[in-house]
């Protein structure tokens, strides 16, 4: 891929565009998932992904081909997300007053509809769905820094090293943030299910 990119820089704009489109197609779904789990909203995720692609194309020459394209564009997306979060802090406060909880619940319902749970009997399946919903909600309620790490490492399946590249912090920081995030989720689950959770999950 590295040689390909270096060559592409010397090519015409049209060729560069094709190269970029190909890379985008490869990671579009993963990037959308990443944005969705950060925002918890498909519409916002779509906006974020589009903006990330635009910005990535704008700064395509700064892409270092030693690193994976997906990590690079994920880092761009994360930066845009952080900027939006900072700008929307004030807005969110009023938005919370303006809207009721319906739209959040609808988002959750949309997500749960697509979830396929396996298990023995309808009770187990229902319980698993409930646990997944609670974990999903707990992750959504996490502070931004912890959420970023748990989404990358646990949901997206990135390694600590990959996550540290995307977030732009040392591996040790990733490790401690992930630990705190999991501890928070654990507390939420313990409050809801007590010590029975593991037995119930099977």
């Amino acid at each position: 891929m590295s040689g390909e990119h270096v060559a592409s820089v010397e090519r015409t704009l049209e060729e560069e565009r094709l190269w970029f489109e190909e890379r985008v197609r490869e990671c579009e779904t993963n990037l959308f998932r990443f944005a969705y789990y950060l925002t918890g909203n498909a519409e916002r995720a779509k906006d974020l992904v589009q903006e990330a692609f635009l910005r990535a194309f704008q700064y395509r020459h700064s892409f270092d081909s030693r690193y994976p394209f997906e990590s690079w564009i994920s880092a761009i997306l994360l930066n845009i997300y952080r900027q939006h979060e900072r700008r929307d802090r004030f807005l969110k406060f009023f938005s919370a007053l303006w809207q009721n909880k319906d739209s959040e619940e609808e988002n959750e319902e949309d997500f749960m509809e697509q979830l396929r749970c396996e298990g023995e009997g309808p009770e187990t399946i229902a319980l698993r769905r409930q646990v997944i919903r609670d974990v999903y909600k707990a992750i959504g309620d996490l502070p931004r820094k912890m959420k970023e790490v748990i989404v990358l490492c646990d949901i997206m399946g990135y390694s600590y090293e990959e996550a540290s590249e995307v977030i732009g912090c040392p591996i040790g920081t990733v490790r401690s943030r992930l630990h705190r995030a999991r501890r928070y989720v654990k507390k939420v689950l313990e409050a809801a299910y007590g010590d029975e959770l593991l037995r119930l999950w099977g």
Partner: protein
Amino acid sequence: MQCHEVSQKISAFVDEELPPWEYREVARHLEICSRCRAEYRAFALIKVVAREIGKVTPKKIPERGVSLEHVMRVLRFRKTLWVIAILFGLLVGIFLILGWQRSLLDEQILNPNHLSAFSEDVLTRTQVRVETLELVTGEY
């Protein structure tokens, strides 16, 4: 290794992101400590559940209703337009203030009571104008 040390490393242990010697130490501790083992299981469960969540690829739907956030987000894309509108607003505001001040000045100039405040010797129109201006600006 003590419980409090293991507790700090459990998360990395679940992800197998510990150096081999530390990994072995934690594993050995978990064999003998039921409390840490319970914590390890809870962390492992969270990871499993999170992976389940990660298997879902959300629908690329939306457009549902209107939210303040959405409206503002759409507007943000027209940032330039906003800047122009604000500048235009400021310009209109400045003109309005200047016009208002000018009208006040005219009122003062054309006010006969005001004119009588000056001596008859200097009561030519141009002089009155100048002196009224000075009066208004506080220089008289």
